[in-house]
């Protein structure tokens, strides 16, 4: 049997120091961004007004952070309580991913000192998909903090509040499923307005549905990937058993996604465009080869009972589905008139700095707080 408890061990290790260094470099470029403007630090321009910070940090990053959402659906909607040991670490990853996605928005938007206008009803444009995304993500950040708070309460032995929270937690669980369903699909809806500037290999009225399924896939893939690695590292066979069960479900969702994906491209009459030999065509092929490879690995893992195949499956799925969402924002987007975009070093360092905060924060918390479901200590029965 397993129980949630702190992993223990030193927090400040050599990899940790390396992460801190990355964060310091990111802070240097952030200082430049806030004193000189977005132009001198990033590769963004009037043709490509969105770059790495929105397309990766927000759009892909929050989808990577859908583990909490994806597991909650399985556990609460489909009543698969056996998976609940995987929920806490997933929610922790989600919490970091979403809150730092919000931080990225603040860094990216030009008039950040007026960001609160998004919350003022007299400024609201209810027809704006972006307003919905902004409000839902902000609300979901709060929900994730509340969903994660039992871990903190348990750590500090605040039993009273813990009990009260437990009674109403189902409300936050329900919101924690509703809100990501809304904003993860709306992140796709956003690009409907890009219209003819987005290649027909990505543009479709099904964007919201595809983005939602991609978010689910990424959520499960990240849970499988993370848990597989930690399961091997800590010889946690209980977790590996759960992951194998979870892996029976994922390829079927992936098949639905691929069918819808190719159906939508066919609907645009753009199937031929994938062989055009241009950037959009090639990256489309890469994206789908990764997804099909993931599918093959998933089925191999099932038949031959090979755990390493599962890690590969999750890895390909993370790359493929992540690439899908990134391409729909950047690579498949061409405003014409010779505009180009490639992220600058500083821009990439800020993104890496944010990833570093996520990783270091995760490591610190699992070492000090009862998050991971670990095998019971010997003699602790």
């Amino acid at each position, binding site marked *: 049997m397993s129980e949630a408890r702190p992993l223990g061990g030193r927090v400040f290790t050599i990899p940790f120091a390396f992460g801190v260094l990355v964060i310091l470099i990111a802070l240097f470029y952030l200082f430049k961004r*806030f*004193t*000189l*403007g*977005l132009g*001198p630090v990033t590769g*963004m*321009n*009037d043709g490509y*007004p*969105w770059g790495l910070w929105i397309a990766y940090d927000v759009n892909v990053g929050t989808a990577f952070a859908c583990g909490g959402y994806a597991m909650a659906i399985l*556990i*609460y909607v489909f*009543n698969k*309580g056996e998976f*609940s040991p995987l929920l806490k670490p997933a929610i922790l990853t989600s919490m970091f991913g979403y809150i730092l996605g919000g931080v990225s928005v603040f860094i*990216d*938007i*030009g*008039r*950040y000192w*007026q*960001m609160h*206008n*998004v919350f003022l*009803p007299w*400024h*609201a*444009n*209810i*027809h*704006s*998909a*972006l*307003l*919905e995304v*902004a409000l839902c993500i902000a609300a979901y950040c709060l929900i994730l903090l509340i969903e994660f708070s039992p871990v903190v309460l348990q750590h500090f032995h605040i039993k009273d509040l813990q009990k009260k929270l437990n009674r109403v*937690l*189902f409300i936050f*669980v*329900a*919101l924690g*499923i*509703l809100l990501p*369903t809304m904003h993860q699909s709306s992140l796709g*809806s*956003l*690009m*409907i*307005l*890009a*219209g*003819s*500037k987005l290649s027909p290999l990505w543009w479709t*009225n099904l964007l*919201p549905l595809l983005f939602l399924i991609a978010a689910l896939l990424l959520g499960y893939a990240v849970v499988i990937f993370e848990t597989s690695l930690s399961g091997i590292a800590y010889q946690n066979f209980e977790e590996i058993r759960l992951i194998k069960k979870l892996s029976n479900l994922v390829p079927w969702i992936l098949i639905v996604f691929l069918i819808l994906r190719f159906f939508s491209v066919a609907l645009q009459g753009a199937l031929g465009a994938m062989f055009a030999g241009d950037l959009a065509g090639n990256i489309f092929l890469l994206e789908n080869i990764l997804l099909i490879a993931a599918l093959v690995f998933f089925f191999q893992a099932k038949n031959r009972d090979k755990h390493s195949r599962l890690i590969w499956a999750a890895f390909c799925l993370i790359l493929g589905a992540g690439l899908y969402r990134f391409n729909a924002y950047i690579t498949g*987007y061409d*405003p*014409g*008139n010779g505009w180009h975009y490639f992220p600058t070093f500083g821009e990439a360092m800020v993104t890496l700095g944010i990833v570093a905060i996520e990783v270091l924060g995760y490591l610190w918390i699992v070492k000090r707080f009862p998050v991971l479901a670990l095998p019971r200590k010997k003699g602790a029965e």
Partner: protein
Amino acid sequence: MSIQRRDFLKAALGGSLAAAASARPGLAASQGRDLPPEALGILYDSNLCIGCQACMTACKQANDMPVEFSGQQTTWDNPLDLSAKTLNIIKMYDGGDTPAFVKRQCLHCLEPGCVSACPVSALEKDPKTGIVTYDKKACIGCRYCQVACPYNVPKFEWDNPFPQIRKCELCNHLLAEERYAACCEACPTGASLFGPVKELRQEAERRLNMEPGQYHEFPVNHISTGKTQTHKAEAYVPKIYGADELGGTQVMLLSGVDFNKLGLPEVRDKSYVSDLEGLSSKLYSYMLLPAAVFGGLLYVAKRHGDHE
């Protein structure tokens, strides 16, 4: 603004059946291509344009815009394209025998993507004149308007730590002084003609029916003032750019050269705004669907909630 506030409150109140029973407030999509009641616009006629760029100077003065230097020199205003410093530009197309000109600026769409995109109503379409205006006090600088504009018109001040979005607002601020778009006030040939969109459309149709080589009267500056000049009509591409493009625009163009060659994108008639708002009006009508889903989730979360 007041209409939008009511929209928002209604939406926020979500599940109330009373709200659902009342008529849905008009989306851009449901208004289709109806012109705003006093829609104002510009008809630009490439055949009449002599490329003098008087409109560019007038635009910079009227909107208090800085000069823009391209290349090494720092003496002359010589922008290469629309930018956060240049809201209106005349570009020359080298078509072999005779050059052709094109005027680029905000087209003031009838179903503007930027307005639909903007989360904080910084970009709004005036319900009377149809002018798409910008309010920097509302703007958060998210730049979704730039993504959503099919013509790449809104520009961002990339080199300013406190940036704004910049775009042509059809000299909205001059209307109160009984003036109109400075580019049209300055145009010496009538190539840029200001006026009510309805009349401009009729004028454009009239020009398309002219026989090339014949002399005709062409209104100058403002179509309603009656001031005209005589010009020899030249052959037109039989199309008004902006009549149907993505639901139509209030700034329209005529040309003797393919619009594609002049840098104007070929786009379909149906706006992407109507795609998006058609979708969201189905999914988010009064938040009924989300409210129902939330109810269902509450039920299952309560029932299946004892897994901890």
